[in-house]
């Protein structure tokens, strides 16, 4: 019996999952292991140490010997090149063109474990794979699928022609950076008028905070310590955002405006890719049903009939562990392909 490990290399926490492979199908074994300690800024040694701790805990808790592990998949936020196993750029860890898989291998070298193929995948791509195989798309055999992530940031990943599509340098799916209002608000990337600048949790919370200050309607944020324009999104929970929507008309208007921009962006993706399904993931769009319904409604109204007919809209079901699941699926698929004598493009953990 073979197993694959998925590790989510997040900045706030690292988590891992063990999957059993049986006839090309994946099945979860045991519970998700998680380390909640935030990564030390600009410290990659700390990051690989957290991954190692998570891997070892996962093996110990599930009483699995490392020799039974077919492959390890590490999912990582920001831009990664899954073909080379490198992080292209990560501002928080101050990394550019960094070989994370190799760094992880070096850290584990002393453990004298057997060689295990390992792979790196972008977090949103991992979420898409996970939802398709084990989550909202399980058993539906979607050959053309769009996964749209909406929370503090906005991103997307595509299953096209029955395979994960990542682009020439693995940076396809920059949905948050589609320009919908030229010369408009600046997003995190520095580009103006992009979807993320209007419809992310960061943008919505900032707008709510600004309006609350301007209109003097501060009841719903009274009691939140040290809240300001820059940290508003981190300080406003989904429950608080829902409460604010019920209490204040202006908050509803802000969500409506955000839904309009996001709905138009989703319509553009539908026109571009003609998918069978769109899966929405991320705490914001999963947590606030009315917001998600508005986005779907606006996407439908802005798409050609021929393109929108038959598109299924689904809510993700594996959040917040989809990255780990997807990392494991990605690694498992690659390992199986390698065993079938596909060209090798991987690093190994010794």
């Amino acid at each position, binding site marked *: 019996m073979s197993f694959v490990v998925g590790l989510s290399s997040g900045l706030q926490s690292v988590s891992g999952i063990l999957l059993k492979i049986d006839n090309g199908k994946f099945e979860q074994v045991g519970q998700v292991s998680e380390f909640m300690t935030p990564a030390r800024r600009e410290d990659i040694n700390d990051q690989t140490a957290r991954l190692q701790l998570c891997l070892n805990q996962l093996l110990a808790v599930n009483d699995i010997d490392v020799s039974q592990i077919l492959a390890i998949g590490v999912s990582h936020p920001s831009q990664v090149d899954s073909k080379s196993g490198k992080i292209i750029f990560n501002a928080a860890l101050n990394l550019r063109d960094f070989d994370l898989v190799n760094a992880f291998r070096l850290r584990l070298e002393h453990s004298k474990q057997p060689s295990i193929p390992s792979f790196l995948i972008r977090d949103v791509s991992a979420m898409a794979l996970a939802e398709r195989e084990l989550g909202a798309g399980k058993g539906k055999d979607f050959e*053309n699928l769009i996964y749209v992530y909406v929370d503090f940031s906005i991103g997307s990943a595509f299953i096209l*022609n029955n395979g994960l599509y990542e682009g020439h340098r693995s940076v396809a799916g920059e949905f948050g950076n589609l320009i919908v209002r030229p010369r408009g608000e600046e997003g995190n990337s520095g580009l103006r008028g992009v979807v993320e600048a209007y419809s992310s949790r960061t943008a919505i919370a900032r707008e709510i905070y600004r309006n609350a200050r301007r209109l003097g309607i501060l009841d719903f944020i009274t009691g939140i310590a040290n809240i300001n324009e820059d940290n508003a999104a981190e300080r406003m929970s989904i429950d608080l955002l829902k409460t604010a929507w019920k209490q204040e008309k202006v908050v509803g208007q802000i969500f409506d405006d955000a839904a309009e921009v996001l709905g138009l962006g989703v319509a553009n993706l539908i026109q*571009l890719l003609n998918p069978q399904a769109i899966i929405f993931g991320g705490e914001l769009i999963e947590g606030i049903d009315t917001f998600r319904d508005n986005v779907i409604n606006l996407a439908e109204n802005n798409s050609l009939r021929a393109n929108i007919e038959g598109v299924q809209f689904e809510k993700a079901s594996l959040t917040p562990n989809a990255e780990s699941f997807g990392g494991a699926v990605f690694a498992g698929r690659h390992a199986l392909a390698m065993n079938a004598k596909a060209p090798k493009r991987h690093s190994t953990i010794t």
Partner: protein
Amino acid sequence: MDYAIGIDVGGSSVKGIVLDAKGVPHGKSINKPTTNESRDAHKDEITATTLAVINELLQHSYPSHETLRIGLGIAGIVSPDGIVVAAANSQDDYQGTNWRKFLLEHYSTKLNPQNLKIERDVIGGTVAEWQNHLDKSHGVVGSQDVLLNVVVGTGIGVGAVINGKILRGADNFSLEMGHIPVSYDAAKNGDPCATPIKGCFELYATNKAIAKYVRDAWDRKNEDVLKRHFRDRDRITKHDLGTLWKMAESGESAVSREAFSWAGEHLGLLLVTLIHTFNPRVMVLGGGVVETSPLFKDTAVEFAKQHSLEPCRRSLQFYSSGFGGMASARGFALVALGQTSIL
């Protein structure tokens, strides 16, 4: 040796070519307008022009003793069985035209059903461009690279090759870029095009968009050169693109130059969407507007470079179409010959 006719049925014209099995043209290619009037063409005009092009190729270029193969590209949305589902740049009566039935009936004694291939027009051009860039002489793309083919004429067509295959989407309707709004504001307040969607790219980055820009500036700019040539603003149509470009290039008409530049920026915005979505290796730009005006193309490429994320455009290369207006017809001849692996 096998031969095939490739036909590109556009809104404004029908183009045809004969290729042999090595992809070498046989005889002259043909380009016939569907109508001499400024309006969109009717079904009868499009079908009659298509037959005229095929017949001329059969008479002068196609070896009479060889098996007849035809690859036909249709502008618009086409069902898998060759029926026009939607076509924005023709009269309403064209919708529903069953090309497969029509051609098989017309050439019933010569054409075997399995030798007739019908697809959306942009697929033919994408096949031709992919083959061109894959060829050893070019060597630009590898079999797993990502190529986008952007064609701008009366409408906007985009084809994509990803993981070695043409991207079709779930229902063969992918990459309807011409009918995406250019912006949030245009989607809310812009003009409708032939579809219910407002503010589409087709209204901002095509030959008809450029003509409309010049018409709209007729009174505001009051340019003598335009008034002398056209006399009436309503006489400026998409068919006058070449004239407008000559006036722009020579410096006689600032309005015309403005129009090409304005439309080029909007095409650039469309390219940014494609770059951020697909992270392609190669982007080929073709079609009547691109071929007519270097300013249009250069403005679009420059805009795209300035407004896209660096990692997404790193190692991206822009090319002009290798076959000009004949790319699509050429590609469909290759399709009919079975000389492509990407379908």
